């Protein structure tokens, strides 16, 4: 039976993880993400899971990756500075195809910036922050309900594609409290195990290899070095490296329209807001308050891999307006995929876009 609760976004994220069967959390406190860790610290031990506060974020993501290789659904939560520290090991997770979930409750940067204020300024760091070429999956919740749902879904995507999956929330959705419907259960689709006799890094048709959990007798060697399908280091062959890196990218990018998850409002509109995260709420308010305005809204719940076809849902679009809590990180991506003018509407420092400001932007285009 569905349960109705009044809950904070960060707590909802932790609850979504628990519902998805997360049994391992390692983290290091940082505002505004700390409540995720605190909630896991309270809940996991009672369920036979493991919570550990590590010495820093580098150690946290390392422990998460280690735990994942035992088969556990494992996650961490952090914010900007901690996220930056994790980058080397995020690349390791990509290279070793380790499923894991990283929740980033974004705050104002650069540097320690604004610990308690909202931002969406790590969107490109999440996509490109580690070294080398790769692809990842990132979700962007816009409500407490979605903090729950998308965190749970992150585990399924991580397991299916064997990549780090990011929940790229902003401080506003992390800290706000609102009504949430908690379902009795959430869909859980786990990793495909490696079949006996198969090579540990030989991909299946979906370009993803079966998972050889530690302790299950495969004797697999896992390394961040370029490796062949046996998992053996092979760091000097251009072909092995090229094949591996191309596959790591392709296994995610080739499925980007399947992974895509977005909401379309008023597809016939000529002026269209494109959002993710909490700016979506201001747009919804503006649409609600101005029924005669005739504006469209494309709201991404998955931002990476970028599902560019979604833009085509608006055939009459004359302008895309992109309100973001940064200087235009996703607007830049949208520009790459459309001939329609893209108008940036940055508002950062912690203040949310006001509906009036959005309406003014529409008037400006007309």
């Amino acid at each position: 039976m569905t349960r109705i609760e009044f809950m904070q976004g960060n707590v909802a994220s932790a609850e979504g993880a628990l519902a998805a069967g997360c049994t391992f959390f390692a983290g290091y406190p940082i505002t505004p993400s700390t409540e995720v860790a605190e909630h896991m610290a309270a809940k996991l031990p009672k369920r036979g899971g493991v919570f550990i506060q590590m010495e820093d974020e580098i150690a946290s993501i390392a422990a998460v990756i280690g735990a994942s290789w035992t088969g556990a659904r494992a996650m961490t939560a952090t914010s900007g500075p901690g996220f930056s520290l994790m980058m080397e090991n995020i690349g390791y997770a990509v290279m070793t195809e380790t499923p894991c979930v990283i929740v980033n409750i974004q705050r104002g940067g650069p540097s320690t910036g604004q610990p308690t204020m909202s931002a969406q300024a790590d969107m490109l760091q999440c996509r490109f922050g580690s070294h080398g070429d790769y692809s990842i999956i990132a979700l962007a919740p816009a409500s407490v309900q979605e903090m729950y749902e998308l965190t749970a879904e992150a585990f399924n995507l991580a397991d299916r594609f064997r990549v780090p999956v990011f929940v790229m929330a902003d401080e506003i959705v992390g800290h706000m409290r609102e009504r949430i419907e908690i379902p009795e259960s959430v869909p859980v689709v786990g990793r495909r195990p490696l079949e006996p006799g198969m090579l540990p890094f030989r991909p299946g048709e979906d370009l993803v290899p079966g998972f050889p959990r530690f302790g299950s007798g495969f004797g697999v060697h896992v390394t961040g070095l370029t490796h062949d399908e046996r998992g053996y280091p092979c760091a000097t062959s251009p072909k092995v490296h090229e094949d591996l890196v191309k596959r790591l990218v392709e296994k995610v990018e080739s499925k980007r329209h399947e992974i895509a998850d977005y909401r379309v409002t008023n597809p016939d509109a000529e002026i269209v807001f494109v959002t993710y995260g909490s700016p979506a709420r201001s747009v919804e308010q503006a649409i609600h308050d101005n029924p005669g305005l005739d504006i469209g809204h494309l709201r991404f719940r998955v931002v990476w891999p970028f599902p560019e076809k979604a833009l085509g849902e608006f055939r009459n679009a004359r302008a895309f307006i992109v309100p973001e809590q940064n200087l235009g990180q996703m607007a830049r991506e949208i520009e790459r995929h459309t001939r329609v003018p893209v108008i940036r509407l940055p508002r950062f420092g912690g203040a949310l876009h006001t509906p009036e400001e959005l309406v003014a932007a529409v008037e400006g285009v007309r």
Partner: protein
Amino acid sequence: MTFSDWLRVDRLPHIYCAGCGNGTVINCTLSAVDQMGWKKEETVFVSGIGCSSRAPGYIVTDSLHTTHGRALAFATGIKLANPSLNVVVFTGDGDLAAIGGNHFIHACRRNIDITVVCMNNMIYGMTGGQGSPTTPRMALSTTTPYGSVEPAFDLCELAIAAGANYVSRWTSYHVKELTRAILAGLRTPGLSFIEALVQCPTNYGRRNRYRQAIDQIEYFKEHGMLVEKARRLREEGKEIPPDTIILGELARRNRPAMGVKA
């Protein structure tokens, strides 16, 4: 079974230089693991980055070759998520004490049930012979061309101070003792730290008057002193030469530990 049953023979030849001490330590570790009677599928080797950290790649069990300095953090995740796995970490002095120093002290503080074997060659081998936190004063390296002016870390003292349950030090000369020490470490619940001084003819020996691999092994033999003897000398008020390498079991205790198999 013998220790050679644990080797991933299809990966040979290994990358180590002729005369390198790391192979000796791998053999000693595998003999100790073998004597434990552990099953291969219940044993995981973890390492960071460096020549020494390549060791798990030559062992047939599940193994995780991680990022530089972070092996203990990865190992902590493995051990806590599944305490029924036996976890052994191979690391180098740079890996463990420089970039990984913080993880080292915290793993010791948590006293997590892992055995850590540090192949201390007193230099950065893999990157071509730069100074490390254990490079002795006045020793030459590519980044200390006029002799290192920094004091060196005593990794065992560090492990003891941070809380490890078992700590001992031997060298690649003391094969039997080293094997026994690793075995004792594997048997001790909590964090066991075994430091093995090894010769690195390519990057340390060549620059520091050990023309042959054997020269540095001879040095270990001549300058090693059992901890019991060192204690006795100290009690008698006698001086211990400054370049003495104190060997043996330096700590064995029973502090509360984490990740111990139920």
